[in-house]
């Protein structure tokens, strides 16, 4: 019993540095998923577009960023780009990471959004057109509002993936939750620190899972 108390006391000392470092984990995942949704929407529309050039460019984007490892993209933006094109030097680590995560997430989310849009029954578009709506009005007032409900679960999934992928940023010397955990592990010579760290990750994913469920219910009110 005393041993358990001792371990708990030790763990409580780690909570503060762990929570502080999770700021990077959280801000990076929230921001890059939001930017990813915005970028992904445009790329998805490009993929649906009848313009061959736009269609090919957007398809190429998805092929490129979904087809290479995120870690490689992060290294490329942070280490290789400044050597290849000095004008594109990004010295702010957080910004470099944010760009890498955003462009990567946009590729995945473009496919989520495209699938959601194309899953809406054709009858909806036909009905809108017969009421005299322009193609743009049809897309933004009829199709997308209905598609949103269908994209929420996969986007929630994507968010949780990104949240965990943020542990890659330690490779460019950003100290996130995972990096702080392993720093504590090696300085205190105990692997027990993984326990409170895992709990923090679970709290984050738990809160966001709940939030996405709420969002889904909110958007389901028309059905």
């Amino acid at each position, binding site marked *: 019993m005393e041993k358990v108390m001792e371990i708990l006391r030790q763990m409580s000392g780690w909570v503060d540095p762990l929570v502080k470092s999770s700021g990077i984990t959280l801000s990076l995942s929230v921001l890059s998923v939001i930017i990813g949704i915005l970028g992904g929407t445009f790329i998805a529309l490009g993929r649906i577009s009848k313009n061959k050039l736009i269609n090919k460019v957007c398809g190429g984007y998805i092929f490129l960023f979904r087809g290479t490892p995120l870690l490689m993209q992060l290294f490329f933006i942070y280490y290789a780009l*400044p050597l290849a094109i000095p004008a594109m030097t990004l010295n702010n680590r957080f910004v470099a990471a944010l760009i890498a995560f955003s462009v990567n997430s946009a590729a995945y989310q473009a496919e989520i959004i495209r699938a959601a849009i194309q899953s809406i029954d054709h009858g909806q578009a036909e009905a809108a057109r017969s009421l005299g709506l322009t193609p743009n009005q049809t897309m933004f007032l009829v199709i997308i509002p209905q598609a949103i409900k269908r994209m929420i679960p996969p986007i929630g999934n994507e968010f949780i993936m990104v949240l965990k992928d943020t542990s890659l940023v330690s490779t460019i*010397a950003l100290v996130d939750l995972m990096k702080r955990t392993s*720093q504590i592990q090696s300085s205190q*010579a105990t692997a027990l620190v993984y326990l409170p760290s895992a709990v923090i990750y679970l709290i984050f994913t738990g809160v966001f899972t709940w939030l996405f469920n709420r969002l889904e219910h909110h958007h389901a009110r028309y059905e």
Partner: protein
Amino acid sequence: MKRIIALTVVLALMLALFAACGGTADKKEEDGTASAGALKIGMEIGYPPMEYVDADGVTPIGFDVDVAYELGRHLNREVELVDTAWDAIFTSLDSNRYDAIISSVSITPERQEKYIITKAYIANKLVLITAADSQVTKPEELAGLRVATQTETTADIMMNELIDGGLALGDYFVYDKIIQCFDELKLGRVDAVMVDSVVAAYYLGEDSERYKTAWENDEGEPLGIALKKGNDDLAAQIEMALDEMYADGTMKTLAEKHFGRDVTEGVR
């Protein structure tokens, strides 16, 4: 008909997979018996010129690698190198992933308390590397500047002590790999890198006009081989083999091969 073809293809693939798996399993078993007495050496292969991979991307080379193999020859045992991330290298020794660490381990009182560390096998000290035109002459003058080290190295520990002692750096970055610190110095994202002299010599050799050694620690930080507490027999054997390697000139030859001079002279 189509279905039969598909089924055959699937079956053939599965058979091939089984054969492949069986093959590797057999091989492992063979290895297990052949190298039951293999000496497992842990190292972070990514620290030139001490331990790194050759241009082919797989063959480990470097001073420590040669020392490990020579040690195996003197002990009459096969040597198996186990590549490990530096920040987990001591934890993996604790959990018996390998018998000893030969990976530029600086001999420090803290490490001697927790592990068996052999007598030094090569001289080394911490140095501060800056751009050639830098005004810095010692670590205390780094206030306001950006400094990089590799995580959990003695350089990292020393910088942390300086920071705790009130040194206000402009920024302090720790990387998983030492190569990244030098990349950052080249890109101008950091002003100084604190690192082992054995490694600095290697990088400065490539770019000696643009960078310089701004400061050297007076206190040497020679490198030793780390073993788990309680593994005294093997430690004694290794010490003896190292003594032999000094006596017969092996260490001198290896040092001259990798550093162009005998950096092992007088350390034992």
